[in-house]
């Protein structure tokens, strides 16, 4: 016997798994290993058969030790062998560990497979039983052990000996009452009412024992009596209450659904495994009761499923197993016999001619059983239907032909519009089951196939959505089963119908699983029925495989065209789209269907133009919204694809718009989607260039105008798209520009709306609309263009208001409009354009002049500063994003227009290291290394980069035309983009990053200051698409660019917002990157850079004074930097080392400057967030206080710091006071130098600690020591001089407060009185 040579395995955790099991030790806590083992097993829940090659070793590693433990327990007598004893010893924990793993394994792989792998030796029987007996049935922690033991017992009970011979009790004692078998039955029976899975294994065990040939007479009969009694009472109680007295023994159990389930489960097993003839006698007794039980309806799915199973088994008990002679057989498939016959017989297919079937008695009860199973097919739960389908298959397999045909007929009746979707599903499953077993005879196919084709498209609307996906899937199962069941000859007549059905489902089903199921079924058919039968099957399958069909858009728009390329399927594809999917309940599907139709036009122009279009036009006013919407969409796409081939129908088509409007279909439910669809139609008509009379053109323009101002953005957008196409195609203009009528009808009207209208929806829409005007209406002369640009620039301004309110969307749309204008007219050059439909044919349109270009640039620059907020959040970000896109477009156009731009020369001011001669260490990152290079080396590097640029020569040769783009613009543009790249919103960063990447790498714009450093800093790894939205990677890059002088400030401004922001991931990544940078700079002694960062932050504080959006994050950033000693130690150094050359900047020391700024910020601030940030910075400043050896200037500064801290300690907000006190305490712990006089240090500490700082500020009568008093005391201890005014200030205020209180009180009383 050849041994298995390949040892490859899919159970990759095998070593670990067995190792963990082997590592178990008695008396230890193995919980972790068990967890791990179960996790490993759970991975295989989907495809448990992968475990098969290893099941044996796994099980033996579990079973062998358990078995020996059970034996030793048994022989030591520690487990009781008496059922009546209360369980005492459940065995060692390790045993339960093993057993629980066995249970888990059977959960994953199924008990039928697992139980075979237990030991099955007779000697194990008694110990295992005893072990089970000593378990406590109520111990919920160990149910898995009971489950495993019962399963084990079911295997042991199969030993082929008379059980009496291994029953030790029967020979040793006289206790014949409790022999082995009885005990097994008793214990299993007791677990039948278990609420958990143990019930299942008890049923397995019980049936295993009771079907033993030696059990049939006594025990089986007893059990059946018992079961019958329980069931009778169960159904009897619902019927009438009279039976109670009969059997007291079981009456208390009758309400137990679990017991019923357990019994039904056991009975199903018994009827399945038992000897059919022996069980025949019980059938009659049970049938009535289980039918009653089924009709009373279990509310539990599980019970219904078990009942269906039982019916099936009862049914098969009535009929003996046989290979029914009438079965359809698809020839012989045995390789061997086929080889021997040498191909002469081909596939001999026979609907067996053996009609003279021996008379078979079919008991009438069987009809009831089949009836029940047919009912089961319509059950509301899939598992029940599935079980019923299988049951019908198994029973039909044993029936004589006529009866079987009746069953098929009954199933087919379920395909009925009055039946539920469940019934359709169940019927499909049953048909597939019959087909697979060869029980659905070819003679039935003519009727069955059309039904299946209907089922494969089954889709019933239920309100807003529909049901039927499962029916369609099951219909695919039927097709799949047909492929396997019938020979090509039999299938031939039905192939076309089925193939089309499957293909259409594969292409156009809404659900991915149905498309894939249909594709799988089609594949099975092509494979088994041959490419002969299934025309073009293989080509189609290659294109429409499992994965490509996963993408719905692709399936609808691309693969459909491929399939329709085969003439055989073309009309079906078109037909299905135009009749079914175009009117689908899901708007997405309708859209896709219309696009699909449009793509198909090329394949069948005449049909589309003559038939489809006509049909759809007749449906545009259909009372059903889905139909009219779909129809309009369909017309639009078809017209667009047909272009001039529309033939004479163009009036009909444009009439659609009029008709729909006349029918007032914009109103009410679905009005919005109709508007979008009509706009799309107008767009498509224009694109198709249908010849239209002027009257119609104006009519369409009116329609579009009406939709542009719709508040739904989607409609507005499609209207603008329609407008763009319409104006471009129609409305001819003279060579001097549009007539004044046209100009006032379009541009002036729109401009007026944007400027004056106070309906935001209108301004938004028309701002976009202006941008979308064609050049002939927009730029026929400089003046017109200027008007348009000025208008949009004005309305993009942050202060522009629609009505009374600012409107971010209007601003955003203005920016978008500007972008479109730039795209349409271009920068600089004058264009000669040809307009269709104009006799004069040509018109000169102007481009943007240098001043206008600058104007747009300036507008965009200010739009980049739009940080407006409303209740929706940072709505300014929409404007900024639009402006980012606009900047890209404008920059590229401007660069394009000014051809002779040189690379920016290294700006002398950007040279970084005039005075850093000591900083010439070799540094790891190139960006930094470059940063610290000598100026002339740097220049050389730049020069080499420039000369490598091939465009260089060209530029020099051209004379000086007007300039639209210069170094300063470039720096500003890039700086603004970099700033956004350093900010906190992921989507903004993503956009900024991509634009920057395109500008620098793909389009290579010139005049980039410090290009080398910039590209180096932002260099992505080769072949890697950068995810700029991910803060983790982006910030490390942007920090590198921060060293470049020209972009420094912009980046710091953005970065500070991120570092001091609220989003955790952003804060973490950005501050991490910043600190890393600080560390690197310190290591490289880049004090200059650190100092500059400090100055930039200070400048930001000045620039955005009292602007909380910036100030708070900047303060937080300063706090972070101070904490990391980035600013302070630097300052010391510069102060000492650069004594010789003290510039203006260096005199401006960081600490005192910052102190002044925070004092100003704190003044009158009511924002807790801000004050806390101020306190943090202030406390950081105290860290450098050192009285000894300080000069006067320092001392004055220290004093000022502390005085301010004490002022805050007396802040009106209790929370602030408390926070200041806490921080101050930490500060003096860390830096004892804060307290002038060492001897008072301890006292100061205790005063801070012992005061309730969030208590009353002023001294009241009850409160002895008010906060203010303690504060003053502390000030004295710490040697801080507070002015008298500060000490006593609040007395005045107190008076004020009292007044307020009185006011409040009188107001309260007023309210009270009014209330009466």
């Amino acid at each position, binding site marked *: 016997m050849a*041994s298995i040579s390949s040892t490859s395995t899919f159970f990759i955790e095998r070593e670990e798994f067995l190792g963990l099991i082997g590592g178990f030790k008695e008396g230890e806590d193995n919980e972790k290993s068990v967890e791990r083992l179960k996790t490993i097993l759970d991975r295989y829940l989907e495809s448990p*058969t992968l475990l098969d090659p290893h099941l044996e070793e796994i099980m033996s590693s579990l079973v062998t030790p358990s078995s020996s433990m059970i034996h030793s327990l048994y022989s030591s007598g520690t487990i009781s062998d008496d059922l009546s004893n209360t369980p005492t010893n459940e065995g060692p924990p390790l045993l339960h560990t093993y057993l629980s793993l066995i249970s888990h394994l059977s959960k994953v792989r199924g008990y039928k497979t697992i139980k075979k792998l237990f030991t099955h030796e007779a000697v194990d029987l008694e110990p295992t039983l005893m072990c089970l007996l000593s378990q406590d049935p109520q111990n919920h922690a160990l149910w898995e052990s009971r489950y495993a033991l019962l399963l084990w017992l079911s295997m042991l009970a*199969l030993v*082929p000996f008379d059980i009496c011979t291994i029953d030790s009790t029967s020979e040793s004692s006289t206790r014949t009452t409790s022999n082995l078998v009885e005990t097994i039955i008793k214990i299993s029976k007791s677990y039948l009412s278990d609420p958990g899975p143990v019930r299942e294994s008890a049923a397995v065990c019980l049936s295993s024992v009771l079907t033993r040939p030696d059990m049939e007479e006594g025990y089986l009969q007893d059990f059946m009596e018992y079961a019958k009694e329980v069931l009778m009472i169960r159904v009897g109680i619902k019927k009438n209450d009279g039976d109670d007295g009969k059997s007291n023994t079981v009456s208390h159990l009758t309400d137990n659904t679990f017991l019923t389930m357990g019994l039904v489960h056991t009975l199903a097993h018994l009827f*399945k495994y038992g000897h059919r003839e022996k069980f025949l006698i019980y059938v009659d007794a049970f049938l009535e009761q289980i039918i009653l039980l089924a009709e009373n309806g279990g509310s539990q799915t599980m019970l219904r499923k078990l009942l269906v199973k039982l019916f099936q088994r009862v049914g098969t008990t009535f009929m003996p197993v046989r290979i029914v002679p009438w079965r359809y057989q698809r020839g012989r498939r*045995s390789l061997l016999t086929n080889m021997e016959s040498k191909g002469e017989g081909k596939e001999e297919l026979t609907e067996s001619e053996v009609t003279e079937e021996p008379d078979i008695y079919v008991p009438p009860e069987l009809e009831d059983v089949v009836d029940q199973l047919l009912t089961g097919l319509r059950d509301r739960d899939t598992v029940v239907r599935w079980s019923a389908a299988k049951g019908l298959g198994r029973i039909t397999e044993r029936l004589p032909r006529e009866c079987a045909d009746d069953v098929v007929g009954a199933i087919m009746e379920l395909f009925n519009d009055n039946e539920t979707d469940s019934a359709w599903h169940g019927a499909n499953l049953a048909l597939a089951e019959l087909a697979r077993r060869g029980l659905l005879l070819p003679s039935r196919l003519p009727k069955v196939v059309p039904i299946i084709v209907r089922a494969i498209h089954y889709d019933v609307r239920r309100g807003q959505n529909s049901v039927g996906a499962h029916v369609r899937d099951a219909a695919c199962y039927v097709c799949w089963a047909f492929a396997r*069941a019938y020979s090509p000859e039999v299938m031939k007549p039905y192939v076309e119908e089925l193939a089309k059905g499957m293909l259409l489902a594969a292409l156009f089903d809404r659900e991915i699983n149905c498309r894939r*199921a249909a594709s799988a079924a089609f594949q099975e058919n092509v494979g088994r029925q041959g490419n002969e039968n299934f025309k073009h099957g293989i080509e189609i399958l290659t294109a429409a495989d499992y994965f490509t069909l996963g993408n719905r858009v692709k399936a609808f728009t691309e693969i459909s065209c491929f399939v329709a390329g085969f003439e055989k399927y073309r009309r079906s594809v078109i037909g299905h789209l135009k009749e079914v999917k175009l009117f689908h309940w899901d708007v997405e599907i309708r859209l896709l269907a219309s696009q699909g139709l449009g793509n198909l036009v090329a394949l069948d122009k005449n049909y589309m133009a003559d038939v489809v279009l006509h049909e759809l036009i007749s449906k545009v006013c259909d009372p059903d919204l889905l139909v009219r919407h779909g129809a309009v969409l369909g017309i639009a796409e078809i017209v667009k694809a047909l272009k001039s081939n529309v033939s004479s129908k163009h009036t009909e088509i444009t009439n659609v718009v009029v008709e729909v409007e006349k029918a007032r279909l914009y109103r009410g439910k679905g009005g919005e989607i109709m508007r979008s669809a009509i706009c799309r139609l107008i767009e498509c008509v224009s694109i198709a260039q249908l010849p239209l009379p002027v009257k119609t053109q104006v009519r369409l323009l009116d329609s579009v105008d009406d939709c542009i101002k719709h508040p739904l953005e989607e409609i507005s957008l499609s209207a603008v798209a329609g407008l763009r196409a319409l104006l471009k195609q129609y409305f001819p203009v003279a060579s001097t520009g549009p007539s004044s009528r046209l100009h006032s009808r379009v541009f002036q009207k729109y401009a007026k709306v944007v400027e004056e209208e106070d309906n935001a929806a209108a301004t938004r829409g028309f701002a976009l609309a202006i941008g979308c005007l064609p050049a002939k209406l927009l730029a026929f002369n400089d003046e017109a263009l200027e008007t348009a640009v000025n208008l949009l620039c004005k309305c993009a301004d942050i202060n522009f208001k629609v009505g009374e309110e600012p409107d971010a969307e209007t601003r955003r749309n203005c920016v978008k409009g500007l972008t479109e204008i730039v795209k349409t007219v271009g920068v600089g050059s004058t264009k000669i354009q040809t307009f269709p439909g104009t006799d004069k044919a040509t018109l000169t349109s102007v481009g943007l002049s240098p001043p206008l270009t600058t104007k747009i640039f300036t507008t965009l620059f200010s739009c980049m500063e739009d940080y407006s907020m409303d209740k929706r959040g940072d709505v300014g970000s929409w404007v900024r994003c639009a402006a980012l896109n606009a900047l890209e477009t404008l920059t590229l156009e401007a660069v394009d227009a000014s051809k002779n731009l040189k690379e920016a020369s290294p700006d002398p001011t950007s040279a970084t290291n005039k005075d850093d001669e000591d900083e010439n260490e070799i540094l790891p990152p190139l960006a930094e290394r470059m940063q610290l290079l000598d100026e002339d080396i740097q220049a050389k590097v730049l020069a080499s980069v420039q000369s490598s640029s091939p465009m260089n020569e060209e530029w020099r040769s051209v004379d000086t035309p007007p300039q639209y783009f210069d170094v300063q613009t470039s720096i500003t543009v890039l700086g603004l983009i970099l700033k956004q790249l350093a900010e906190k919103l992921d989507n903004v960063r993503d956009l900024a990053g991509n634009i920057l990447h395109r500008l620098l790498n793909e389009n290579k714009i010139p005049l980039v200051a410090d290009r080398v450093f910039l590209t180096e800093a932002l260099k992505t790894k080769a072949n890697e698409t950068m995810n700029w939205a991910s803060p983790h990677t982006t910030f490390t890059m942007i920090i590198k660019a921060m060293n470049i002088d020209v972009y420094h400030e912009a980046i710091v401004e953005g970065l500070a917002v991120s570092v001091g922001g609220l989003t955790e991931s952003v804060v973490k990544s950005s501050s991490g990157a910043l600190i890393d940078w600080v560390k690197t700079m310190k290591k490289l002694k880049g004090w200059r850079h650190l100092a500059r960062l400090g100055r930039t932050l200070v400048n930001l504080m000045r620039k955005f004074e009292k602007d909380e959006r910036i100030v708070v994050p900047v303060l937080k950033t300063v706090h972070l930097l101070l904490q990391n000693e980035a600013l302070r130690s630097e300052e010391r150094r510069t102060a000492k080392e650069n004594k010789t050359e003290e510039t203006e900047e260096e005199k401006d020391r960081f600490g005192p400057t910052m102190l002044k700024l925070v004092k100003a910020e704190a003044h009158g601030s009511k924002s807790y967030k801000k004050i806390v940030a101020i306190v943090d910075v202030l406390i950081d400043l105290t860290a450098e206080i050192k009285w000894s050896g300080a000069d006067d200037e320092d001392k004055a500064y220290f004093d000022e710091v502390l005085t301010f801290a004490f002022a805050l300690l007396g802040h009106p907000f209790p929370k602030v006071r408390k926070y200041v006190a806490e921080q101050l305490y930490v500060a003096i712990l860390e830096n004892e130098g804060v307290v002038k006089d060492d001897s008072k240090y301890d006292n100061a500490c205790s005063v801070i600690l012992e005061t309730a700082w969030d208590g009353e500020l002023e001294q009241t009568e009850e409160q002895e020591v008010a906060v203010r008093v303690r504060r003053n005391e502390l000030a004295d201890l710490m040697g801080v001089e507070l002015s008298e005014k500060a000490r006593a200030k609040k007395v005045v205020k107190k008076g004020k407060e009292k007044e307020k209180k009185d006011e409040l009180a009188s107001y309260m009383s007023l309210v009270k009185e009014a209330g009466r």
Partner: protein
Amino acid sequence: MGLLSIIRKVKAKEKECRLLILGLDNAGKTTILKKFNGEDINTISPTLGFNIKTLEHRGYLLNCWDVGGQQTIRSYWRNYFEATDGLVWVVDSADRVRLGDCKRELDCLMEQEKLAGASLMIFANKQDLAGALSEEEIVEALGLKGEQFKTRHWSIVACSAVTGEGLLVGMDWMTDDISSRIFMLS
């Protein structure tokens, strides 16, 4: 339960079958099974109970159930019939005396409803012993040409469990025959 999961299940089932190995005691059932499994065959004692082995052959998983053949436990064979795809009947070709017994037991099995449709593979074992009957003689002795076997797929192979000769041929036939049926019968 969608089509795709049904397919997965069906495919798994198609690859698995259950074989029952039966025969009179001392026919060599366990030896054959151990030989299949590559185990030592020198220390085999009468099977008091049953063995289950799972083997892989030609891409199929064969669950082989080997049940003891002693007279006393033959009545329990019935216990194992459920869902049997193939019956392997092992004959001691040298034991002429009990051939009648052998035929009787086999006939009895063939009447069992639960084995209807199962493929029958007969191993004419112990061909290595002198005086062993040939395949033809055993066909004759068991009455395999009779009415009872007309509708059954059966085959007989002369073999020796000790040398291993013929075993593979038999199992090949068995898997082929089952796989040609199992397509349609689950």
